[in-house]
């Protein structure tokens, strides 16, 4: 009996030791095998201070228009013009003027095009083993990033005031605006976006925004058929007034009062409740099953892709151009 107890005890100790060793492994190894989504959800563990990695250099391939650089590590550094062939270190700030453009080459791991009216910072560009870690900050403006993972693993992250994006061998266009905030468009491979606790994977041809909206919702907003302007001829304050006071006030009552259950409800464009099927057969049928179950038509507002054209094409024109599949706001 004592012998069995000792054997079981040793076995338990070995198993727990193996599990602890697994937990202590660097997150970098884990994320290399996981999806982009997981990569963003679990940031790579910080390397030990003793081995921060080897610094790599960023080269300026071409410059057009007005473009300037400044070292962020020196307090009193002045802005100076960027020239093709310049080699940039970490902690370099770059800004372009109206009509300016810079093309940067991140060693052999990809390139970044800084578009007109943009300010970015190169926070880190280092190699640790086979993994190259890149951290770029985007304050405002737009960039195009092409990450090349054919020569090794990449951990490319783009941080904006609205959120962070991570890529593993892919391309995309990203913008940070003062009004529309973060906007992203995948052009190849996969990107993972993270804003607060929300995570979204973005693949080629898909868009998202600062709320990490589902790509289909963005598509609907972009291609949704709108008669007249978005407000139907009303300003936001007029709309609010009608919402608060509509119903029982003469001609404007047709919109209905949300406080009065008996009156018809106004559904504003853009705030259509999630899950409500839109568009559909031209014969006016309102059977939700026809939208959801029919793979030729199926997509709902919740962003869940329920089917689509046969053959897996994701051409938005096929959805919008077909009157049988026409949809409204």
């Amino acid at each position: 009996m004592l012998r069995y107890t000792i054997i079981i005890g040793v076995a338990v100790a070995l198993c727990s030791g193996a599990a602890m060793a697994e937990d202590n492994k660097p997150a970098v190894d884990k994320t290399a095998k996981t999806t982009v989504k997981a990569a963003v959800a679990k940031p790579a563990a910080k390397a030990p201070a003793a081995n921060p990695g080897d610094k790599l250099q960023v080269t300026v391939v071409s410059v057009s228009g007005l473009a300037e650089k400044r070292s962020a590590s020196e307090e009193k550094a002045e802005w100076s013009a960027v020239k093709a062939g310049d080699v940039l270190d970490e902690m370099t700030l770059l800004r372009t003027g109206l009509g300016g453009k810079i093309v940067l080459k991140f060693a052999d791991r990809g390139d970044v095009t800084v578009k007109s009216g943009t300010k970015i910072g190169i926070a880190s560009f280092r190699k640790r083993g086979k993994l190259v870690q890149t951290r770029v900050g985007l304050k405002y403006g737009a960039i195009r990033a092409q990450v090349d993972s054919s020569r090794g693993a990449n951990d490319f992250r783009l941080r904006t005031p609205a959120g962070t994006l991570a890529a593993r061998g892919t391309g995309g266009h990203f913008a940070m605006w003062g009004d529309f905030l973060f906007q992203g468009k995948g052009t190849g491979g996969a990107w993972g976006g993270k804003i607060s606790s929300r995570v979204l994977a973005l693949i080629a041809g898909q868009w998202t925004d600062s709320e990490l909206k589902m790509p289909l919702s963005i598509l609907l907003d972009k291609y949704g058929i709108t008669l007249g302007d978005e407000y139907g001829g009303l300003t936001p304050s007029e709309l609010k007034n009608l919402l608060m006071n509509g119903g029982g006030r003469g001609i404007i009552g047709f919109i209905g009062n949300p406080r009065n259950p008996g009156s018809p409800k106004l559904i504003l464009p853009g705030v259509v409740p999630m899950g409500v099927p839109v568009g559909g057969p031209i014969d006016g049928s309102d059977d939700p099953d026809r939208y959801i179950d029919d793979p030729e038509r199926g997509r709902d507002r919740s962003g869940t892709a329920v089917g689509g054209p046969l053959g897996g094409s994701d051409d938005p024109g096929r959805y919008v151009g077909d009157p049988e599949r026409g949809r409204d706001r």
Partner: protein
Amino acid sequence: MQIRSRRYYLLIAGMLAVATLSGCGSQLSVVGKDAKLPADENSAAFLDRMSSQDTVTQNDAMRGILMLEGGDKTDTFKQRVDALVDKKIIPAGSYDASAKLSRGLLARMICCSCGLKGGVMLRTTGPSERYCLRELQYRKMMMNGSGSTKISGMEFASVLTRAEIYKRTRRFPDMVGDTD
């Protein structure tokens, strides 16, 4: 009856004369004529400065529009107003160097600078703040909202960048600044 009709005509003519003489038509009025901005500021530095401001003054806004037009070679606010009035980007009206820029005024300046023709109402009524704003909102060059709202520096920089892309390519940029 004839006398009364004549009196009516005289009354109407008198009112028209008084209206004309009293300046019923718009007159240029500029407050803070000598207000200056940082000298030798290029568009990159200007956008960088704007992006850190909560609000935008009319003085700043007019420098931005002049940069869109090729560069700001003026020194004072009065010179900027005159330059923009000459280019027919703003009408002769009242301007204040330290007043905060509204979205409506920005929309009007952008529409005129980019030469946007707009839809039926904009073409019929000419460039007005209301319909210029609606045109730019429709084109996704400006965020939805009221024309009287004061604009932030980041928003101003973004709109200016999109307007420059349109002027350069004659195509409206998408949400990531592309015209492909």
